[in-house]
């Protein structure tokens, strides 16, 4: 009897010791910080530096402005995330994994639950995907990739150190005449999306995250000098005009959506394009406050790797995503999609260049529902697309418009305008992405 009582008492004590009163985090409040690191070019060595975006084997001949990594630390007092914007054409999942791994101790120390890396898609940067070396040869420069990873980590750590409390707002501004779509149907999202952090401490700089749906190609294919392209010009102008720290993330730029050519001289074109976009970014906007609630969810998913060229690049070790093969011989590549909910605004972090039709919805039964439609069905009325986030699968094309050359699929463009298919993983990606996006939405608390 005594033994039973003693055991019961011990169990009761054990049970009660596990029942702590719910920790009071206090009221939620936004906290944000900004960090930036320039990505110096490595010393001239054995490995050349190739310029990414256009033709194979084109070496860099100079610098207009250095590529940068810009980071935003965001927290609501309970959850925290990092958004790192890197000036480059794209980052494969291996580089994203390296950056995340380098921030593992940082995340454990700070409670950061989500590290997200977005490429600005500048077509005037060092090749960071390996696709622009001589044909079949990895165009990445190992020394530069090490500098890029170190720069991204440094920017993230600086963003955390810079953090302060304040309010968060968002705005959507219409634009006109700043984009053109070279592929039919000519469709693009002409909205400029912005999230602005206003610190309580007037000594701290406000921070502006802005997103626009146009390829960073104002310098066009003639250019062989390193530059951030128009996102860099706009961020610098924002800094000069307002004292804000700015970072850019691309929107749904698949299609191929670019800024129009306004000047013959490409450097002049860059400056004029940047000024025009900055004018819209800095124009009066209807800012709406975002209540301090942050939640992030991430879903890994597979999609069929149908593109033979990408298969060769994977074989040669140039592309890095994990692949598997099924019993029928089809290959599948693993990637990820994330959703960050900030109050009643959500950011969709998409691992490639999404066609805007897939954000809005095409209405075609062969195509998946638009991401905005899926978001609406799940109670999210304001969705911001962040492309080239945490991976770069290439173009993500509506299946109804996915056409391949019959004789040499992926090696030769099909009749009409179907260049984007040659730089995509395959026709299944859009549907697999939509499904994974919905899962990510449902996973949000």
């Amino acid at each position: 009897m005594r033994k039973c009582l003693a055991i019961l008492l011990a169990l009761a004590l054990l049970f009660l010791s596990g029942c702590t009163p719910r920790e009071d985090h206090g009221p939620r409040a936004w906290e944000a910080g900004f960090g930036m690191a320039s990505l110096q070019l490595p010393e001239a060595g054995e490995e050349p530096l190739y310029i990414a975006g256009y033709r194979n084997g084109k070496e860099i001949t100079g610098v207009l402005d250095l590529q940068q990594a810009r980071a935003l630390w965001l927290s609501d007092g309970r959850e925290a995330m990092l958004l790192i914007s890197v000036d480059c054409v794209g980052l494969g999942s291996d580089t994203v994994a390296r950056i995340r791994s380098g921030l593992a101790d940082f995340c454990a120390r700070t409670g950061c639950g989500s590290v997200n890396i977005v490429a600005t898609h500048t077509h005037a940067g060092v090749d960071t995907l390996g696709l622009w070396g001589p044909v079949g040869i990895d165009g990445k420069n190992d020394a530069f990739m090490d500098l890029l990873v170190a720069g991204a980590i440094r920017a993230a750590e600086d963003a955390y150190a810079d953090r302060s409390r304040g309010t968060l707002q968002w705005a959507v501004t219409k634009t006109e005449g700043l984009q053109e779509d070279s592929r039919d149907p000519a469709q693009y999202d002409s909205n400029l999306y912005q999230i602005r952090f206003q610190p309580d401490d007037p000594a701290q700089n406000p921070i502006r995250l802005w997103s626009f749906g146009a390829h960073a190609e104002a310098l066009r294919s003639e250019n062989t000098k390193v530059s951030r392209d128009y996102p860099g010009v706009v961020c610098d102008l924002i800094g000069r005009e307002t004292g804000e720290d700015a970072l850019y993330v691309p929107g749904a730029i698949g299609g191929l959506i670019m800024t129009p050519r306004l000047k013959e001289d490409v450097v002049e074109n860059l400056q004029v394009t940047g000024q025009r976009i900055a004018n819209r970014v800095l124009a009066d906007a209807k800012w709406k406050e975002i209540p301090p609630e942050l939640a992030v969810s991430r879903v890994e998913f597979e999609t069929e790797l149908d593109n033979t060229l990408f298969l060769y690049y994977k074989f040669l070790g140039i592309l890095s995503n994990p692949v598997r093969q099924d019993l029928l011989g089809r290959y599948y590549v693993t990637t990820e999609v994330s959703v960050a909910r900030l109050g009643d605004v959500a950011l969709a972090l998409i691992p490639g260049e999404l066609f805007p039709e897939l954000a809005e919805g095409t209405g075609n039964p062969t195509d998946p529902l638009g991401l905005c439609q899926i978001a609406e069905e799940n109670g999210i009325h304001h969705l911001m697309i962040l492309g080239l986030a945490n991976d770069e699968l290439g173009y993500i094309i509506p299946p109804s418009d996915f056409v391949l050359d019959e004789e040499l699929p992926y090696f030769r463009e099909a009749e009409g305008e179907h260049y984007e298919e040659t730089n995509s993983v395959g026709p299944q990606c859009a549907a697999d992405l939509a499904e994974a996006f919905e899962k990510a939405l449902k996973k949000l608390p």
Partner: protein
Amino acid sequence: MTERKRLWALCIRAAALAGAGALCARLLLQNLYRFLTFDPTFYDIFAQIRDAAIRPPVAALTLAAVGISCLADRMCGRKILRIFVCILLWLLLAIVGVLLTRVNGIRFADVLFSLLDVLRKGGL
């Protein structure tokens, strides 16, 4: 020879055949570029896989090797003939092994046959 000894001999023979097949596949693919000196482009391209993750199909090779060993075991006739047949079958095993070997997760056969098809159609 007792049944047990025969079984051991069979296992050792199969393991040796499979191991040799896997090693052969790995060495061949790691050094494939050395056979392409006639074309500097292909030489440079395939030199990239010399340090790649190369995974021969060990399970398939082992199964095939067991089959060859059993066959050799059951063959009647002169020893020299049995050895010759084994060698031929092993060569076949090695070729299939190379084709089924994965480099960075992609089967060499998938790349080879696709590339040959593209070359035939003038795609490169």
